[in-house]
């Protein structure tokens, strides 16, 4: 440990001066990440503009200069899409931003997105050696900076290998599908993505709000893939308009990747779930994000906005729904059945939500949504919980406190308790092995399903997870497809 710490002496200039007093050991105080400029909380809770504003070139260089360029870096192994973090951070420190961006894009098709929504604190930054004594290098913020820089300065297209002459169909233009398509294109395959919606991006477009991930950023990443030669066919619900076997047998695709996601929203098994002011987070967010209901009636899609909205759940989607509710003018309260420490949402998201004024109710579980004769929500009956013995997930199981029922004064409820796999592909594709949760089972190493040549990855395999884990699965499958076609 001590050796590493000594090595961790900063190389960068302009550090705070060391104390003159002579302690036993000369140790600088632990450094912190250079803070990310942000929109003021009061102001941003009323607009849909991006919350985090991004580093300046000066901030990025200073942050990158802190990196100690470990001989055996651990950060890269923490990255599901294997970005050469050490390499690109060095380029940032040297001010070679375009080169840094190109280096990231060699393995990561969506860096401007990852730099914004990856949980770096549990991945690359968690394993950062510099981070043992200090706050880790702000890898996510640097990734975001260079990809934004490259986008604004006109990214040149990389040189691609000669075409192999083999066609791959990718189902779903979400994080898994886009990554798989990007990697395969970089290897020389012809890739066609079939997307059910009228826009690409999957959850990046319909789910994650503008203020956390601007849609221009997503569109730019996708357009870059299109420039590389990826073709996207919209309005194509595979399993309905064409089946996977038709793609393989009639359309001449050599292989298929299924990245159709975990799109089916879960509801609670309590009374009142079908009242008219109860929404899945998917519906609420899709109306606002994809269909731009916040611009109604300029856009035709309406969205309901209550005065006081309860959001059930404690994940990132719940935070997104709560913060979107605020921006539409409502009071938003999170209702979560476990304790604060157990919130599955990223700390940063919870912090942002609190700053903006989202109210948190911990250890509270809804038991009934109350409605009037018209079917509108007039309240939500809840019960207080306490933490009992640990459950299968290792988290202490919340148990109801008898007699602690109370009514929450709300007029709208958003349910954000997770999603199940979309059933359309499993139902329409004979031969796939489907788990009892409805997910598609694959060979973990290759990503191939039980149907030869058909691969799958992302939420349709794992159930609802993160953008980056889906991207990692898309990458693994691209490699699996390449190996399969070159056996």
């Amino acid at each position, binding site marked *: 440990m001590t050796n590493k710490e000594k090595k961790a002496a900063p190389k960068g200039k302009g550090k705070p001066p060391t104390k003159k007093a002579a302690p036993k050991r000369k140790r600088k105080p632990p450094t912190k990440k250079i803070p990310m400029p942000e929109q003021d909380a009061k102001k941003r809770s009323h607009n849909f503009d991006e919350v985090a504003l991004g580093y300046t070139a000066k901030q990025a260089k200073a942050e990158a200069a802190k990196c100690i360029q470990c001989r055996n870096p651990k950060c890269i192994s923490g990255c599901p899409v294997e970005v050469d973090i050490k390499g690109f951070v060095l380029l940032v420190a040297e001010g070679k931003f375009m080169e840094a961006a190109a280096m990231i894009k060699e393995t990561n098709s969506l860096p401007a997105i990852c730099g914004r929504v990856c949980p770096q604190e549990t991945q690359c930054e968690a394993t950062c050696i510099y981070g043992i004594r200090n706050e880790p290098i702000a890898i996510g913020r640097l990734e975001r900076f260079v990809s934004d820089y490259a986008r604004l300065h006109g990214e040149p297209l990389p040189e691609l290998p000669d075409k192999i002459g083999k066609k791959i169909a990718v189902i779903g233009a979400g994080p898994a599908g886009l990554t798989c398509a990007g990697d395969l294109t970089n290897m020389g395959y012809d890739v066609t993505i079939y997307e*059910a*919606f*009228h826009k690409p991006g999957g959850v990046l477009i*319909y789910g994650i709000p503008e203020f956390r991930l601007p849609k221009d950023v997503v569109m730019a990443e996708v357009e870059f893939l299109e420039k590389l030669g990826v073709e996207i066919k*919209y*309005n*194509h*619900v595979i399993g*309905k*308009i*064409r089946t996977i076997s038709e793609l393989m047998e009639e359309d001449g695709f050599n292989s298929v990747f299924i990245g159709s996601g975990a*799109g*089916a*929203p879960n*509801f609670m098994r309590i009374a009142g*779930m*079908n009242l*008219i*002011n109860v*929404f*899945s987070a*998917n*519906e609420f967010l*899709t*109306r606002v994000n994809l*269909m*731009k209901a916040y611009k*109604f*009636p*300029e*856009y*035709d*899609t*309406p969205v*309901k906005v209550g005065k006081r909205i309860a959001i059930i759940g404690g994940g990132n989607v719940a935070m997104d729904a709560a913060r979107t509710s605020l921006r539409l003018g409502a009071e938003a309260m999170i209702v979560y059945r476990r304790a604060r420490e157990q919130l599955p949402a990223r700390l940063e998201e919870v912090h942002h939500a609190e700053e903006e004024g989202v109210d948190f109710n911990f250890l509270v579980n809804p038991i009934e949504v109350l409605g009037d004769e*018209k*079917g509108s929500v007039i309240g939500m009956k809840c019960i207080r919980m306490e933490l009992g013995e640990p459950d299968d997930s290792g988290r202490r199981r919340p148990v109801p406190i008898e007699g602690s029922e109370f009514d929450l004064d709300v007029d709208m409820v958003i349910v954000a308790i997770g999603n199940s796999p*979309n*059933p*359309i592909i499993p139902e329409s594709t004979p031969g796939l092995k489907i788990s009892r949760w409805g997910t598609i089972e694959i060979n973990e190493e290759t990503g191939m399903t039980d149907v030869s040549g058909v691969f799958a990855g992302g939420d349709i395999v794992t159930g609802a997870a993160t953008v980056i884990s889906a991207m990692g699965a898309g990458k693994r499958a691209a490699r699996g497809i390449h190996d399969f076609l070159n056996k």
Partner: protein
Amino acid sequence: MYEVLDKKIINEITKMLVVQAPDIARVCKPGQFVMIRINETGERFPLTVADFDRKKGTVTITFQEVGKSTRLLGSLNVGDKIMDFVGPLGKPSPSDKVFGTIVAIGGGCGSAIVYPVARAFKEAGNTLITINGARTMDLLIYREELESISDEFYETTDDGTCGTHGFVTTVLGDLIKQGRKIDLVFAVGPVPMMKFVAKTTEEAKIHTMVSLNSIMVDGTGMCGACRVSVDGQMKFACVDGPEFDGHKVDFDELMARLNAYVDQEAVSNEKWASEHGGAE
């Protein structure tokens, strides 16, 4: 983009468009629906297909102009294009099966949706009795089409201007009272009509199928807006339906959910009227 190849104004409020969509026409089956987004600012909404032609590569939609989006759709002319046209979605009708004697019931615009299903039932070898109903004679649609495929054909109007004076359930009730052997009733129309059809057949224990037109955003099982209680279970009309056992559907809940956006619909309608005139 999906081009409008033909247009028919069926009556003052009902229009029919034939849309070029060969990939959908290739596999479309009776009872399925499409999701439509007319233009960049448009909303996504479902319409159950009224017909399809595999050879010509077309899908026909017949709809009543009730809100801004259907008015906008009705204002399209031959040669105009629809931005997004997604399908075929939902589970098809079991219209290739032989049940015996089927009573097909269409109310208002529902008759357009009943038509391809009833035709398939007839082609499969079922005996087909059709009841076509509307508020008044001018609103009866698909009269010749339905009559031409039916073994027996009845019409009803609420105001008595054509056929039996009364509701579709008046004729259905009579058929049941006469002791006619009915193996299946298939009904599409306004929710109250479907509710009363289901009530009429319940005592006689006649299997009754209804096709629901819930509010949807994506139409592929992703938003849950179309959820409906069937036998106390939560179902999604888009992937589990749109057809369900009429004796098990909670119609009152469905009606409340269909009215969820009346205020916003009024705003959109007013905006449309002020920009185009001619609205109510």
